């Protein structure tokens, strides 16, 4: 069975400081991993994904994430946070062996608050 854990309900960081939003996962096969961002009363927006290859993945708005197979983690990072980064962030996983429905499992979300 697939599962995703985001251990922090909220992350607080000062503007200009680096940020990390944590994610760990569990799948039977190889994982496809995703990060999405949601602003209030909006749909989810895709940020980045890991499918294969380089463990460090770069995405939109200066975000990046590092895939760590031994720790089954896929933490989201940004070197310098902006107030406008404040939002709800979701980590998601899909088993590479999934077919047909290609179901994705989402974490509970982590609220990022960047203080000016």
């Amino acid at each position: 069975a697939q599962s995703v854990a985001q251990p922090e309900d909220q992350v607080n960081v000062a503007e200009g400081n680096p940020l990390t939003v944590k994610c760990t996962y569990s799948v039977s096969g190889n994982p496809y991993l995703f990060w999405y961002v949601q602003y209030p009363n909006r749909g989810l927006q895709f940020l980045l994904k890991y499918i294969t290859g380089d463990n460090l993945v770069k995405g939109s708005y200066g975000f990046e994430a590092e895939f760590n197979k031994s720790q089954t983690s896929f933490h989201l990072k940004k070197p310098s946070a902006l107030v406008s980064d404040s939002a709800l962030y979701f980590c998601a996983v899909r088993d590479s062996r999934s077919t047909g429905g290609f179901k994705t499992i989402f974490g509970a979300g982590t609220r990022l608050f960047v203080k000016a």
Partner: protein
Amino acid sequence: SQTIHQWPATLVQPVGSPLSLECTVEGTSNPNLYWYRQAAGRGLQLLFYSVGIGQISSEVPQNLSASRPQDRQFILSSKKLLLSDSGFYLCAWYSGRAGGNEQFFGPGTRLTVL
């Protein structure tokens, strides 16, 4: 480019009333379509998904149902709403025959059942 529409954007309904939420996708053909519910601004619960016209898979037993009458149209329905049906409903689509693509989400419908 592909776009996904949901309507209505907001809806306030009394308990026991029927429900119909609509999702349409433009710019792609034969997509996988999904309905999610998000309660209290947190995690997403997959309700239904569809891999083709008339093909519906239900993930969670409840008083909701889904239909896909056309390739790019996905409808979420209920005959009698419950208070617990309140939430933010998101439609998403997925394209491709391999598992490595991302999903794209609609703007959502905020449903309040009173």
